């Protein structure tokens, strides 16, 4: 299985102590950046957003700025394996642990697409937005959905993947991981200034597997997109795995732009 080739126009990344892709590339941690700030959101919606929504807002803003695309029109895809599970557990606690009425504000941001909705509001984007999930295959799925859009619309597409740690109460049910968020803007191949090009495929053996990520980041279902963003930032060419061995084995064949 091979998807059509597309161009990479911009990237973004957030992980604890590395609040942007440039912090990550420079290897200069910011010890104060332990939580995403969600600065791309207006104040009201920043209050509404959880950690997941804030991280996604931060990385999409970085990728949009790098790609120099219009945030008010770019089609936007958000990927997350567990979405707002933490918010859901909070709602269940309200109902059953604390015997309280449910908070309507919390309920409205418990949907998986809360982040994509908040980002569309922040960017005044009235175009297509979506929110998808496919466990460890979420990065591959988000890339596939994005490539489908790029190929059929001939327009740039923004995608971002993130997962926050699984709710603490379910920790015994799921392996722990740290927050990780990455974003990428893709466009039609071969026409615009770009960071590189990629082909998503199933079958080839990975040749690039960045080693710099902490084990708690590698355990995050979204590590595949972070690996790809890392390789793009470093100008590498090769085959990047889109999951850590627990998914279906999709890869991105990356060709770096000449520098």
């Amino acid at each position, binding site marked *: *299985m091979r*998807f*059509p080739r597309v161009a990479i126009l911009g990237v973004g990344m957030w992980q604890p102590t590395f609040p942007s892709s440039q912090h990550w590339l420079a290897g200069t941690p910011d010890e104060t950046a332990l939580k995403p700030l969600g600065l791309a959101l207006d104040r009201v*919606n920043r209050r509404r957003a959880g950690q997941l929504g804030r991280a996604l807002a931060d990385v999409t803003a970085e990728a949009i700025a790098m790609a120099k695309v*219009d945030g008010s*029109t770019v*089609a936007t895809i958000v990927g997350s*394996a*567990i979405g707002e*599970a933490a918010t*859901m*557990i909070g*709602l*269940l606690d309200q*109902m*059953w*642990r604390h015997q309280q009425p*449910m908070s*309507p504000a919390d*309920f*409205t*941001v*418990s*949907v*998986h*697409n*809360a982040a*994509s*909705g*908040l980002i*569309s*509001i922040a960017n005044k*984007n*009235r*175009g*297509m*937005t*979506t*929110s*998808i*999930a*496919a*466990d*460890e295959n*979420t990065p591959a*799925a988000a890339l*596939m*959905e994005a*490539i*489908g*859009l790029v*190929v*059929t*619309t*001939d*327009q740039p597409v923004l995608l971002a993947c993130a997962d926050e740690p699984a709710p603490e*109460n*379910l920790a015994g*049910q*799921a392996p722990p991981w740290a927050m990780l968020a990455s974003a990428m803007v893709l466009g039609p191949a071969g026409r615009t200034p770009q960071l590189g090009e990629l082909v998503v495929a199933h079958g080839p053996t990975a040749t690039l597997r960045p080693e710099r990520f902490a084990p708690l980041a590698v355990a995050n279902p979204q590590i595949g997109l972070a690996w790809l963003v890392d390789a793009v930032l470093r100008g590498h060419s090769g085959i990047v795995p889109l999951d850590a061995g627990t998914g279906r084995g999709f890869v991105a064949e990356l060709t770096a732009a000449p520098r």
Partner: protein
Amino acid sequence: MSAGDPTTRLGPLPITGYSVLSALGGTRQQHLDALAAGRTGLGPAPFELPFATSVGAVREPLPDLPPALAAWTTRLSRMLAHLIAGLDEPLRRARARWRPERIGVLLGTSTAGAESTERAYREFVRVGSFPNGYDFLKQHTFGAPLHVVAALTGARGPAWMVSTACTSGAKPLASAWRLIHAGVIDAAIVGGADTLCTMTLHGFQSLQALDQQPCRPFHKDRLGISIGEGGALLLLERTGDGRVRLESVGETSDAYHISAPHPEGHGAEAAMRQALQFAGIGPGEIDHVNAHGTGTKLNDTAEAKAIGRVFAHPLPVVSTKCYTGHTLAAAGAIEAVFAAMAIEEGFLPPALCSEPRDPDVLLHVPTSRTTGTFRRVLSNSFAFGGNNVSVLLGAS
């Protein structure tokens, strides 16, 4: 040109089979009978709630999963197993025509396995441990049902779950439409499913969005929604025999509010206009709109304004949520099937509980069964996050 506009018009694709499950029953015929008779599936909730509301509960016995998939057992995955069984014959034909890795699984859910997690978490709160057999990764996540569907159907192509609340079941049609036209796959199992959950009911109650009576879309005294459950699967193929085809899908955002629709319905209007534009047809070629029509004050007023601006002619507009309840992520898929049935069978169900009509709803909402030729039908779905989808189906 705005983002999302195809530079080359994507052609229609045949829908070569579908299956549907809701409070109306578990077969196409049961749904046709109920819709033709104007018989609602709404009734009391099958579990205790501290407030009054009607729900559209699935009462069909659901199949057990095969032993190899037992760890993935949830109400949602069993609903999907029922729907896959109903799609058996067209799936068999598709598997004979296309390689497994060229058949995608693109579905929608908002609850995923939340119903299982609710029960497990309630036990955790009560006794401090999760019940035996509960597995967060196999039962809660949005991706878990994909494993079940792929295993039961043999599809090995791209697979993902759309979760955009109440548009989740409609958006996979757009994803599949693009992937088939991009040449990546030849067929896709698309649709959506959602289950009744205590949390969802409490959540909509907290928003004061539940009607105590069965929901009354477009009624002057409507007070909100009735939640339902169910699902639908449609088989979309590059080529094939189907009486109905997917002509296009419009997808837009309100960029207005996280849970309220734009009061003028601008995003809804844009989604309908985009669907028409993508299909290369004018509003006059649409014969019927299956409205999102939830029964909330805000949604129905905004949607009526949007429909009124798009269509100059008095085409019949019906919300079928008074039959099934608002099945949330399943609604877009179930209502796409209802749109297909209207084209195939030449009738529209009567709008239930819509009279006396809201004087601000200046639409033709037929309250008796309407027969005729319906060659092209739009099915609307709108969601939290300001997410709007309009699916355009046509006769082959």
